[in-house]
């Protein structure tokens, strides 16, 4: 039996990526949810909701393709960043965050929107007649009331970001020690025939995923008891 030697960099990269992605996803998702929930026109709501949900239903490679088209060196945003800030997004660590955030965004957005729409509208009306400013109503009344749903969405989005593969491989590639996240590492090890190493990574990711789901359930139970 060969001695235990495991490259920890994919684990660290994955955790860093998922953590950075969830911060972006959380705020963007909640913001989008608030905007869409407040829309009056049904048609506009449907169209916008469709667009925002698309990354969830598209094959991740297609989402990655679009990301590459926009953020790649020849894409409009990518070109702009290279020309003016000499920052290259594609095939950098930032690209893994971009991919994870883009793919996990719909989960966050949809959960948050569902939870926000469930909030008793009278709470918001009451806050308004009391003279509370809109931003305060959102952060102090609506969001806390929607918290269980929003938190569950956050946990799901985090887990999805951790497992992101398709879009990441498209825009971030598979550069060891830089953009090789856990799923990519598993793929690479299997491709190279190192099943043992792949096993180790698989165990790590199964553990992570289990902890995340358990944590979510724990919060839900805690919430119900309150």
């Amino acid at each position: 039996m060969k001695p235990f030697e495991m490259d920890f960099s994919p684990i660290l990269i994955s955790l860093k990526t998922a953590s950075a992605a969830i911060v972006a996803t959380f705020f963007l998702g909640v913001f989008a949810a608030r905007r869409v929930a407040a829309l009056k026109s049904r048609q506009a709501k449907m169209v916008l909701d469709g667009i925002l949900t698309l990354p969830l239903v598209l094959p991740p490679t297609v989402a990655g393709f679009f990301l590459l088209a926009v953020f790649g060196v020849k894409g409009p945003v990518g070109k702009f960043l290279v020309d003016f800030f000499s920052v290259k997004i594609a095939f950098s660590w930032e690209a893994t965050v971009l991919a994870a955030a883009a793919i996990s965004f719909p989960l966050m957005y949809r959960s948050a929107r569902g939870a926000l729409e469930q909030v008793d509208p009278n709470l918001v009306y009451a806050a308004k007649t009391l003279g509370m400013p809109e931003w305060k109503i959102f952060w102090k009344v609506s969001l806390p009331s929607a918290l269980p749903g929003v938190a569950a969405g956050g946990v799901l989005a985090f887990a999805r970001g951790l497992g992101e593969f398709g879009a990441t491989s498209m825009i971030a590639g598979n550069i060891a020690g830089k953009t090789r996240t856990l799923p990519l590492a598993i793929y690479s090890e299997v491709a190279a025939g190192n099943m043992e190493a792949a096993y180790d990574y698989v165990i790590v990711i199964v553990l992570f995923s289990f902890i995340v789901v358990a944590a979510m359930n724990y919060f839900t139970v805690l919430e119900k008891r309150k």
Partner: protein
Amino acid sequence: MSLRVRIKKRLSKSFLLESEFETSSCCLGILGASGCGKSMTLKCIAGIETPDEGLIALNGRTLFDSRKKINLKPQQRRAGYLFQNYALFPRMTVLENISAALGGPRKQRREAACAWIERLGLGGLGAQYPHRLSGGQQQRAALARMLIREPELILLDEPFSALDACLREQMQILLQDILETHGDVVLVTHNRDEAYRLCSEMLVMESGKALKKGPVREMFRRPGSVGVARLTGCKNICAVQRSGEREVYASSWGLSLRTAEKVGGEITHIGIRAHDFEPAARQSHNVLPLKVRRKSEDPFEHIVLFTNAAAQAPEEQGELWWKYSKYSGWQVPQKLYIAPENILLLVP
């Protein structure tokens, strides 16, 4: 206060809310059945809903004017609104709820909220979350949260409907005290007792239209129209033909009745309140022999449903209600008498 409301709002293809009234009394009650548009009127005043057109002005301040394109936000209207379900913020303690909308330093907000907690008898509950409170306590917390903002106008939406009978009466007494010191109230209710007890003026609404407005006692004494009579709790309403200057014939009761007032040509119905019958003594008119159809009782009242025993024809078998106190010492008599002055003359 002075509140002027003249609004139109289409709520569905067949339902047009047309609310129009002006009041300067301290407590106006809006009485109407569920779905008549009374809550919507209240929401329009608060700015939660926007009317299609019209005008709302409070103490000379325009809150809404469709022509001048004025539509103040609820935040700017200074109208406190007490919701049917109280709408306390579930993730804030009672103290946080009450001080939520206050500005200024933390300590000062806390002190102001504590003063209100004491005032409404919520002492010791400041740190509790709303779901731990009883219905009456929740309502008092919601009241405190509203009153601490010193609103110019207080809007109450069916404030007692979620309370049990015992608490309801306690809260009505408490509210009466508060309303006397804080003035200016519009109370929406489907309960005539509440309106009678708490309001000085009353507006009666039916299917989106304001039927009549006037001093509460006057509205009960002389409802004037079928809709108002029904909503103020008149149990016996019947179409009539005029048969004399002060006499009508109620066909579905098979009964000729004298009235105290002159019967105008516009009178189509009469109303008799269930409590206004009394056992006949030696009266020669307005007496009807009764045939009891059903009896039931309340804790302190007997309820008798009867028809006119003298009437034979099937179309004359309209049922009448009689309610009398258990303390009156009365038995169900052979004949009942209704005083002419207790016959309400009604237009459609």
